[in-house]
């Protein structure tokens, strides 16, 4: 049961009718509807290895949810192919359903009128989970998510944070190797968010589940994901580690050191520029080309100089992502101007 996700050239175009404004416009739309095509996802390719957590990032309307819907089998792609745990999700929906768990942030799959535990029991029956296994798993989830304090409450009376925690548990009750989470921590307070992160980390590290997650919360990405895929206007902009993204879009780190030896010869290091030198205090920053990550720079500085004090300043991920989105925007615009077919691959 290998929980890999393979996405090859996945595309999805929506056809919608434009609603013209005003009464005359509405009449016109009725008689002669104007159809437009919207490319929500365009030729996206990536892999997620079993037991890996990947964050799918991008600004609003980038195509994240559309991608997840195709991978869960709710939506058929217009081109390309996807395999989740070896199954083509939109072709074998029921078989795929046993391999995956999914949470769509604001939408609950629990039964509104029933106590949460009854919802869990119904899901147990639907997924044919043996009672002993079910009870053991509930115990495990309770330990991590504190469910028992409210799982006898009816769903309609739960707070948002409580409900989403229950939804997370509900999605994992049948022990799926692959989990899709579309903005799972939306609207949660910091304590609950941390709890959920802890839970997800446990699911990935201890249970070996593959997790594909979308979020707009960069702290979350930082704490959870080693690898991210960035999409914009439906196109893949970047696939790499957080470090790579930092290097690419957020090379605004500084390393501030206090030297032990006032007579030391201070000079730039490979990929590292000397920004300031004032007595014992020196400040390094990334050079124009081949800048290392802040951690590599820190190591290089310590290895080269004897220092009494050292500190780093780093652009936080929010800034980095903002830069990445802005640049991605420019790239997409360039794409839009180049006639298709003459398009350059990648960024």
């Amino acid at each position, binding site marked *: 049961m290998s929980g890999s996700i393979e996405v090859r050239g996945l595309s999805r175009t929506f056809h919608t009718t434009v609603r013209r404004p005003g009464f005359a416009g509405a009449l016109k739309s009725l008689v002669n509807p104007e159809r437009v095509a919207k490319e929500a996802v365009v030729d996206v390719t990536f892999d997620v290895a079993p037991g890996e957590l990947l964050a799918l990032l991008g600004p609003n309307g980038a195509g994240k949810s559309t991608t997840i819907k195709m991978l869960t089998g709710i939506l058929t792609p217009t081109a390309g192919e996807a395999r989740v745990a070896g199954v083509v999700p939109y072709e074998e929906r029921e078989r795929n359903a046993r391999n995956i768990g999914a949470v*769509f942030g604001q*939408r609950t*799959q629990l039964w509104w009128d029933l106590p949460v535990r*009854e919802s869990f029991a119904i899901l147990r029956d*639907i997924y*044919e989970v043996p009672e002993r296994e079910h009870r053991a798993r509930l115990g495990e989830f309770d330990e991590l998510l504190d469910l028992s304090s409210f799982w006898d409450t009816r769903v309609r009376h739960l707070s948002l944070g409580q409900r989403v925690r229950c939804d997370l548990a509900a999605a994992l009750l049948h022990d799926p190797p692959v989990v899709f989470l579309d903005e799972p921590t939306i609207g949660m307070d910091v304590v609950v968010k941390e709890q959920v992160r802890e839970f997800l980390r446990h699911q990935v590290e201890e249970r070996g589940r593959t997790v594909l997650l979308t979020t707009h919360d960069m702290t979350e990405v930082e704490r959870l994901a080693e690898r991210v895929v960035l999409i914009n206007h439906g196109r893949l902009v970047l696939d790499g580690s957080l470090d790579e993204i930092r290097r690419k879009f957020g090379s605004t780190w500084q390393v501030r050191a206090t030297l032990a030896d006032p007579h030391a010869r201070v000079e730039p290091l490979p990929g590292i520029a000397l920004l300031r030198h004032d007595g014992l205090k020196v400040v390094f920053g990334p050079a124009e080309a081949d800048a290392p990550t802040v951690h590599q720079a820190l190591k290089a500085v310590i290895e080269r100089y004897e220092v009494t004090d050292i500190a780093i300043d780093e652009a936080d991920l929010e800034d980095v992502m903002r830069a990445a989105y802005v640049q991605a925007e420019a790239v997409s615009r360039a794409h839009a101007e180049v006639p298709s077919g003459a398009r350059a691959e990648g960024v």
Partner: protein
Amino acid sequence: MAAVHAWRAARVTPLGELHTPPRMTAALLRLTVQVVLVASLWNGLYAQTGTTAGLDRDQAVTYAVLAVLASRLRELDQYAGRDTVLQHMHFGTIVYWYLRPLAPQRYYALRALGEQLYGLAWALAGYAVCLAVGVVRPPESAAVAGVFALSMLLGQWVLYYVMLVIDQLCFWTLRNGAAMLILIFAQNLLSGVYAPLWFFPDWFITLSGFLPFQATLSVPLSLYVGRIPLSEAGAQLAVQAAWVVVLALFTRLLWRRAARRVISQGG
């Protein structure tokens, strides 16, 4: 893999009701008031006019009270549980129906079955009480009782499909409020909940003969009170069965189209 335990999803309605005692009290109250009102209405009418449309007072009261009890079998409003197709389309939670190893049509059917069985418990209890206090007459014979039970089963089956069609409309319109209101009215009028059909003009009866509503309630109740004699029961049962088959095929087609619509729109 055959679903061994999935049938237990049928418990959703009864469980929801048991967890909401005020709703049960309200149901009890409404049923009592309706039965009392309907019984006194028909008793009063007959006190004025004597035999009408070939039906004596006891038959008319029995018909009307049974109609009230039977309409409890399946409530036409299930919004409280937020588990209607309309609400799932509105909140976008319909996606979860397509994310489970239980097909949406199976889940829908199981859910409806639980609801009907729950309603049946109410109807039977109400029937027993009405029988005990003499508001309704017992069936003429064991044969009538048997044919009535069979006809009632088929009638509920037809009703299930009629409501399913209305629910399936939501996949295309997102709003079925108007259709639902028309259906409830048509169902009550044409199935004979408001008044037995034979009080209506001929053209109306002919017209309703082409619609499935008569098969839901009017036929079984007419069999019970003896308005349709046992000798004609076979033909009536056949018509009901035919409606079941036609609607089953039609709704199956709609399910397939609904699935295609969901997977092309993404719910």
